[in-house]
């Protein structure tokens, strides 16, 4: 189903190195060969997306995996900033977080998150979740072509 010229790019916004590695491993386990860039907090994520400083010249991601619990600028604020920016608002944002709190879920959807996924504690379940993200967003869904790519 994937009929793109280039591989799909994912930006993972996650501050916990354990989670970063776990996500990478989960993608690896699913034999998904996709470039995965990582931003460690909200400020870095926005700098990356706006190609500021050291991020100058980097391509825009096709999909963003966003944790909510972030230092400096939390996930909700990052989401709001992305959806308020005409150059970024087309990029689907999947909220991938530990929280199951109703208020977090509601806030995420109000801020136009594409979907909200609670990270399963069980690693096999997590692999399954990543596999579904992969299957849905990287294979089933037709994503818009980035404004700058």
């Amino acid at each position, binding site marked *: 189903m994937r009929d793109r010229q280039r591989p799909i790019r994912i930006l993972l916004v996650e501050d*916990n190195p*354990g*989670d970063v590695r*776990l996500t990478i*491993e989960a993608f690896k386990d699913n034999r998904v060969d996709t470039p995965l860039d990582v931003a460690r907090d909200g400020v870095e994520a926005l700098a990356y997306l706006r190609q500021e400083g050291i991020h100058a010249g980097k391509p825009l991601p096709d999909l963003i995996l966003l944790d909510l*619990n972030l230092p400096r600028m939390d996930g909700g604020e990052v989401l709001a900033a992305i959806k308020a920016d005409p150059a970024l608002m087309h990029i689907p944002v999947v909220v991938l977080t*530990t*929280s*199951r*709190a109703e208020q977090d879920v509601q806030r995420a959807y109000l801020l136009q998150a594409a979907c909200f996924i609670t*990270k399963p*504690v*069980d*690693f*096999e379940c*997590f692999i399954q979740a990543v596999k579904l993200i992969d299957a849905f967003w990287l294979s089933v869904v037709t994503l818009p072509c980035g404004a700058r790519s």
Partner: protein
Amino acid sequence: MSAKSTTRITSPLSPPDTADGSRSTRLADPRFDEILASANDAIISIDESHAITLFNRGAERIFGYSAADIIGKPLDRLIPERFVARHGGQVRDFSAAPETSRMMAQRGEIYGRRRDGSEFPAEASISKFRGPNGLVFTVILRDITERRAAELILRGAHDELERRVRERTAELEERNAQLQQEIQERRRAEKLLAEQARELARSNADLEQFASVASHDLQEPLRMVASYTQLLGKRYRNRLDEDADEFMGFIVDGALRMQRLINDLLTFSRVGSRGKGFQPVDLATSVAQVRINLRAAIDESGARISTGTLPVVNADATQMEQLLQNLIGNAIKFRKGPAPSVHIDARREDAAWRITVQDDGIGIDARYAERIFVIFQRLHTAAEYPGTGIGLAICKKIVERHGGQIGVHSTPGEGASFSFTLPDREETPHA
């Protein structure tokens, strides 16, 4: 005793015209005679030497002397001895005074002396006029013994009344003081209660905050422990020995159980804080929904679920469903064998509904009847019956939030009957 012939009268209005005015007087007008005779008061005249010259019938009655006895005698006979000197002075004083009459006893009471020596209180006026033989003083005197007695009684009654009023006032004041004190105490108690309510609200908010923190921050490290252990096991399969696999199994199992406990604790804490308002709930509909939710367990066990007529109650719909689901779920879970049967029924009780969930399962020893409603208290090992021991604690909290009570009747091996009450109510729930 006082025949008209013995009464010699000198009319004050018409001075006697005889030379000897003291002893024999002639009436100027017969009407005066009548007036003097019929007067109730004593009317007594004396001359300048204080000898009695007139003594009417009233005087006879009051003093006990007949006019014949007393005429010509000194007035002092009619005065208690201790007043005699003072009285003489007063009459002399009056004789020199410009006025022609005055009330006596202006400076205190006066007393008369009867023939038998007894005294009586009196009220009197004195007047004077100049007759042919000098000044004539006339005293009009009334015995006020009875009035005094009446006054005394009246004063006694008055005093008694005043005493009673004082007593009653004192009683009322005392009662009032008691009431004031009670009011003060009640106010203090109310203030204390308000403070405690504020403290409780604050403590509930703290707990809610804690629960929220527990859901995020405690789960993150657990996820790390569980996930990386699993990843380790997966990547190094066949490169570690059997012990390592078993140990990793324990690590993962512990982390997953911890996570379930945290989630259960959150669910439990939210029964109060996240409860919804009360509205009419058809419990038959709730049971129907529970059948759908528990379809897998029902199908797997072959459970038969029957209901009597269930009422519409004023309650939190979600919590009613959760309550019935926990009880029906338990009834299926703790079955004795295949095809357990569960019966849900309701009956009226005072101002409440009592809902009963009866099963034919393994039952519960009576000594554990209280303990099973305490959070995380379990009667079985996880291997026998999985679960954290939260279900009945949640049931209890839901029932209590609805103002009711939950309990169990059971004989081991013969099934259990869980029942709870839902009092009739209109008002909103307390958190």
